[in-house]
């Protein structure tokens, strides 16, 4: 008699797998940490995505001499300021996009907030082969404490593939 495993793993039995959705849409926040990354994020945002928001940390950082606040660290791509904690509170995943060699000091603010709210973080550094290793290292060092998954990609097309793979 055929074993349970042999029968169940057959191509014939695969026809009886339930064909119904097995997950709900995720909330993903994709955040650019520097100027080149903002351009990447703007290009990504032109595609059709599910429950995914595209944000930037530029033009929204509070003045250096202002008292610390979780307000004002994020903006949407139209430049409207967003409240960081509110944005990430219900997110399933925050993806921080950085470009090797750029200043990404806001990573710590985003990361701290995600840590506080127990939100999963992915850091993604886009780097060209011409970028010196020391610059990539600096970017990685800034992201490492705040990213539970860190990816170094040689081209921005990986980001779209990754978001699709994650059902963004």
């Amino acid at each position, binding site marked *: 008699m055929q*074993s349970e495993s042999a029968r169940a*793993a057959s191509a014939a039995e695969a026809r009886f797998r339930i064909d119904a959705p097995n997950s709900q849409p995720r909330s993903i926040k994709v955040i650019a940490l520097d100027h080149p990354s903002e351009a990447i994020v703007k290009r990504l945002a032109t595609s059709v995505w599910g429950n995914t928001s595209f944000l930037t940390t530029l033009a929204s950082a509070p003045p250096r001499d202002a008292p610390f606040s979780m307000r004002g660290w994020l903006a949407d791509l139209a430049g409207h300021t967003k409240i960081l904690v509110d944005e990430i509170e219900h997110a399933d995943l925050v993806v921080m996009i950085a470009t090797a060699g750029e200043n990404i000091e806001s990573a710590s603010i985003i990361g701290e907030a995600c840590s506080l709210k127990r939100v999963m973080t992915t850091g993604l550094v886009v780097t060209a082969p011409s970028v010196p290793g020391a610059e*990539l290292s600096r970017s990685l060092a800034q992201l490492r404490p705040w990213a539970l998954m860190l990816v*170094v990609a040689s081209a921005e097309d*990986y980001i779209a593939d990754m978001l699709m793979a994650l059902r963004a």
Partner: protein
Amino acid sequence: MLKKEQSDLLTLTGPGTAGGRLFRCYWLPALLSSELPENDCPPVRVKLLSERLLAFRDSEGRLGLIDEFCAHRGVSLWFGRNEEGGLRCPYHGWKYDRTGQCIEVPSEPVESGFCNKIKLKSYPLVERGGVLWTYMGPADKQPPLPEWEFAQVPPEQSFMSKRIQESNWLQAMEGGIDSSHVSFLHRGDLNSDPLFRGAKANQYNLKDSRPVFEVVESPGGLFIGARRNAESGNYYWRITQWVMPSFTMIPPRGDHPVHGHFWIPIDDDNCWTWSFDYHPTRALSPGEVAAMRDGKGIHVKYEPGTFRPLANKDNDYLIDRAAQKAGRTFSGVEGIAMQDASLQESMGPIVDRTKENLVSTDNGIIMARHRLLRSVKALMDKDQAPPGVDSVHQLVRSAAVILPPDKPFIEAAKDALVVRAGTAHASV
């Protein structure tokens, strides 16, 4: 999640497919040398990339890999007589040399030269490191011979086994770069398996079951780094190598031999899992070899006379629910290799990737697919050779190292990630 058409591009590897063309860019492990132990020994059936072939070693020790079937009436040459420089079909005596060239058709006058018009498809077959390798692509694109370190060390320093896996190659390979499953599926084996136990690094694994991952593109594929907390604020890094299309090298533990795999499509529903162990600077001990032969580490015990694992889907992988309940194994299946294979085969012959829900820690798998798809496209559109063909991409090592928190492994462990003759792997 992967669209069906993308999944098809990678999982279908028969003649005329894009995925098949990708595999046909590389030297592929086809048989163990021990399967053709002597001149004029019995031929061996080989199925690769959905083609049925026959391997033999002729009277002068030359290796051949040819179409399995006689060009006359289509009988299998597996029944053939391997004698006097060729393989003779037992049906009507047609004879073929190692290149598939017909050299005798007894029913036709020799002077007619009829046999010169008959030639079976054949592929080169070369011996390196106890493995017979074949290249199934166009002759003018044949790459340099494989340079993997395990195949270059003296024979007493390496051990190779293979087993049939009853699933598509891609889901098997993806298991090899899915580092986050180790803390669950294999957790019982680190302190018990003779090829793992005793390493200091095992304590880091067992103390910190939530590693943080870094995935970095390498020239030939990917570095997949998993970091755990070590003493004094340092990190313990395990860096796995994946080289396209389907080679992985797992980070070492202590002074144990280093191991890894190739996954090679037999057809779309089955693949060969090749498993190597080697040590770059010393002979494997008799105890280590005995353990490997006994199916420990990443190897398996076999059904007698076959390369099919003794624990297989026909006997429910000898699942032991009591061992599962008692925590001796996490899934109830014994041995690292079959713990992986049982779950990968349970997905069905080709898993439906449109249904999966990948998460952030699956970025190694996502990046591997991305690189494979990108390479298939470049190959199909521009005839561009994929990564991993260049022998420099094969001269790599996995590593296990302790680094300060501000040091990226790709810089700090740079030297440890390439072959350095006469030195051992960086290991903890």
